[in-house]
């Protein structure tokens, strides 16, 4: 069994120096998970780095995300700035919140918002 295991297609790309070597499957960054563990992480969710978060030992993408969160920023904008696909950014942000490195005050579902808050939003919109 000395033959390289390329027959199943999982082996290294043949021209390791070419374009194939540059290709990273998007959900590699999340260990293959396609869904965030926290329901409140949506594209509009605003997150902020917790104190000391920049000192935490992190992988490259997570470090970049934390660095971009020195002021509140939405997951959609984080995804755009890092060129990380939406779905991947949601999973990574969710993980960082679970680790306590990013904070948010998003409700899990919009129907959990109290009526008086929704009315306040409507009144703000009316005065635009």
């Amino acid at each position, binding site marked *: 069994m000395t033959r390289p295991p390329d027959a199943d297609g999982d082996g290294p790309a043949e021209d390791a120096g070419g374009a194939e070597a540059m*290709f990273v*499957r*998007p*959900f*590699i960054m999340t260990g*293959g*998970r*396609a*869904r965030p563990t926290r329901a409140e992480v*949506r*594209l*509009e*969710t*605003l*997150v*902020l*780095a*917790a*104190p000391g978060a920049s000192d935490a030992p992190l992988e490259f993408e997570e470090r970049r995300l934390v660095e971009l969160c020195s002021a*509140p920023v*939405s997951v*959609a*904008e984080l*995804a*755009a700035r890092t*060129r*990380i*696909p*939406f*779905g*991947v950014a*949601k999973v990574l942000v969710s993980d960082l919140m679970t680790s306590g490195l990013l*904070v*948010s*005050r*998003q*409700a899990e*579902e*919009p*129907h959990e*918002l109290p*009526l008086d808050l*929704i*009315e*306040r*939003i*409507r009144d*703000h*919109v*009316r005065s*635009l």
Partner: protein
Amino acid sequence: MSDRSEVPLAVKVVVSGGLGVGKTTFVGAVSEIEPLDTEAAITEVALGVDSLDGVDAKTTTTVALDFGRITLEKSIVLYLFGTPGQDRFSFLWDDLVEGALGTVVMVDTRRIEDSFPAIDYFEERGAPFVLAVNRFDGAEEFDTEEIREALGLDAGVPVLPCDARSRASVRDVLVAVMDRVIDVHRKAGRRTAALARG
């Protein structure tokens, strides 16, 4: 020190409708920021998998997103997200729409059928929406009730004219969405109260 209270609450309204119906103009009329270019993994079609095995990850693709932000007060930010009009990006809809307070479905009376997929999508989810009839030069004028009838909309769904180029007109449509959200919220509350009384 950062803590949760320093982070504004984000709420979202979705702007949907067919390709070229005026979603970009609508969002641009009230937004503080420019639209975003984002990457979408086309693997996101294969949601529900929890392993890379079997995920046909070919590449990512760039999507120009109609994305708008309006700061309502220091602690509340309203985001507007447009749904991409092209069919090939329809897999993004669930991500864009989840958690939205309400939705604007835009319609162009010259191509009214282009709004069917959006109307079906939001009706199926029971999501509160309003129909905004965008004015285009040269388009025949329609009575909003004729349009409601043509689309078979529920009597509770507001149908209103809109000029996506006008900030005031876009504001009026957004107020109508919020009124609809409040209406649906109140009805749901009453239902819950009635059930509680048994």
